[in-house]
């Protein structure tokens, strides 16, 4: 049984880490970009961002004044049990979000869409989002927080099979061009592409591809992995860099996730996880151990399963 107090205290630490500490995989990617960048202004911007990450860690202050919209992904091993059940867990995550908003501090970004009511704590109707995933074995839970920016860099379109790969490329480029100019997407970014699913799941897949996969990871389908390489290269060949200045670094990595969709369609979404890619992860074990990491490791073979039943032995044998 995982104690509920441990859930809340761990969640508060994660809120703090996500806002302040740039994940190592993204930092490595940006350092590599800074080495290759030869645009005067783009180079200056990347250098300033690298200094900013150090300043944030030294001062224990948020990397960016827009601290995004905090949300939670909860992954549970099949045997995991939380003290007080899932309602208690949700209350703990909401409380941790509110406490950390005041504590770090974060910007209280969350308001009512019509009345603009702000509780000054990033908690409200449907906020923070809490989404769930499960794994076949284990008594642990993974808490993952992501504080993604909310306004620019994301788009959705219903494409059709006849649009083909060239249609996918075009919508990808359109999204980069539209939101890359003037740096609205806060690039270079981790670009996530969702292909397939129903409309809402298409958006979810793309968002998870950008936020729950790390720089350097590749889809387990080798042909999709090839597309990821190709799309990263394509985005970086536009000639646009940080802030929309002339440059060669727009995409730190491109991650693609797919889901089965309606036979007549090929829905697509594009998401940009920005220069302050705020994510933090911890696994809480049943015995009270807490392990922190920055890789959500969300997209396991189980999450990408294609068949009715999960038969790991058979899958392993294949």
């Amino acid at each position, binding site marked *: 049984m995982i104690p509920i107090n441990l859930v809340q205290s761990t969640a508060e630490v994660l809120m703090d880490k996500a*806002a302040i500490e740039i994940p190592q995989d993204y930092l490595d990617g940006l350092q590599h970009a800074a080495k290759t960048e030869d645009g*005067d*202004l783009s180079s*200056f*911007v990347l250098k*300033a*961002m690298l*200094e*900013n*990450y150090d*300043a*944030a860690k030294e*001062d224990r*202050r*948020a*990397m*960016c*004044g*827009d*601290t995004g919209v905090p949300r939670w992904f909860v992954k549970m091993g099949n045997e995991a049990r939380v003290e007080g059940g899932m309602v208690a867990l949700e209350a703990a995550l909401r409380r941790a979000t509110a406490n950390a908003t005041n504590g*770090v*501090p*974060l*910007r*209280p*970004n969350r*308001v009512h869409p019509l009345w*603009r*009511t*702000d509780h*000054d704590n990033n908690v409200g109707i449907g906020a923070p989002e809490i989404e769930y995933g499960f794994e076949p074995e284990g008594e642990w839970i993974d808490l993952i927080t992501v504080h993604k920016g909310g*306004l*620019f860099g994301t788009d959705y*379109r*219903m*494409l*059709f099979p*006849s*649009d083909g790969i*060239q*249609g996918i*490329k*075009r*919508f990808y*480029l359109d999204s980069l061009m539209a939101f890359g*100019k*003037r*740096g*609205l997407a*806060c690039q270079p970014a981790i670009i996530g592409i969702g292909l397939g699913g129903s409309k809402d799941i298409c958006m979810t897949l793309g968002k998870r591809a950008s936020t729950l996969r790390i720089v350097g990871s590749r889809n387990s389908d080798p042909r999709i992995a090839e597309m990821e390489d190709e799309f990263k290269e394509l985005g970086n*060949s*536009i*000639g646009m860099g*940080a*802030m*929309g*200045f*002339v440059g060669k670094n727009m995409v730190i990595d491109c991650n693609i996730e797919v889901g089965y969709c309606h036979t007549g369609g090929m829905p697509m979404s594009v998401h940009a996880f920005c*220069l*302050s890619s705020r994510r933090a992860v911890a696994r809480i074990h049943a015995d009270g151990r807490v392990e922190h990491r920055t890789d959500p490791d969300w997209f396991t073979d189980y999450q990408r399963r294609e068949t009715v039943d999960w038969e790991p032995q058979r899958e392993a044998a294949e």
Partner: protein
Amino acid sequence: MSPREVRLSTTPTDEAIADLQLGDVVYLDGLMYTAREGVYMRALEDKANIPMELPSQSAANFHCSPAARINPDGSFDMGAVTATASFRFAKWLPEWMAKTGAKLIVGKGGMTSKDYKEYFVPNGAVYLSTVGYGTGALLGRGVENVEAVHWNEQLGLAQAMWVIKCNRMGPFIVASDMNGDCLFERENAKIAESVARVYEGTKPAVLKRYGESDDRTDEVI
């Protein structure tokens, strides 16, 4: 080549503004206030009295809401500070500038050269962009003190009018000048040369969207 660095007062002289060139890196000293849609609507549409002497106290309007808190004793803690995209505020800025004498509009992404020529240049104002975006921790280090927060109860922390004392706060990039030229449009024009090449072989989506045709009597197929 590194950009030129300039230190600038938040109540700058006309000469200091005229000297700024596109792409210069600026560090600010003096008082700066945040104002975005909440403040604009309250001051311009609801005609509330602006709780500062402008522009004598500050001619620098930051399109920002900070990551900050008000402590129970009434003091402030400001962590990170970055800008929000400015283009959405074009509808209020001409009146705001006329009313407040703002000379430095500080934000994210700049405005169009049309905006600059129509009301920035006649008001002797330029646009400074934050860097990145955003160098929130570096900018936070440049906040020497939070002097006041106004309209917090009416607008909430994120939309309130924060008054901050800047001490070599930066970096910012000069994104418009006294010709009304726009740094971002200059960069767009350079990038435009390669657009046709990267799009080569791609094709328009089979199902169009309104916006791709602005004629609402058209079909989208």
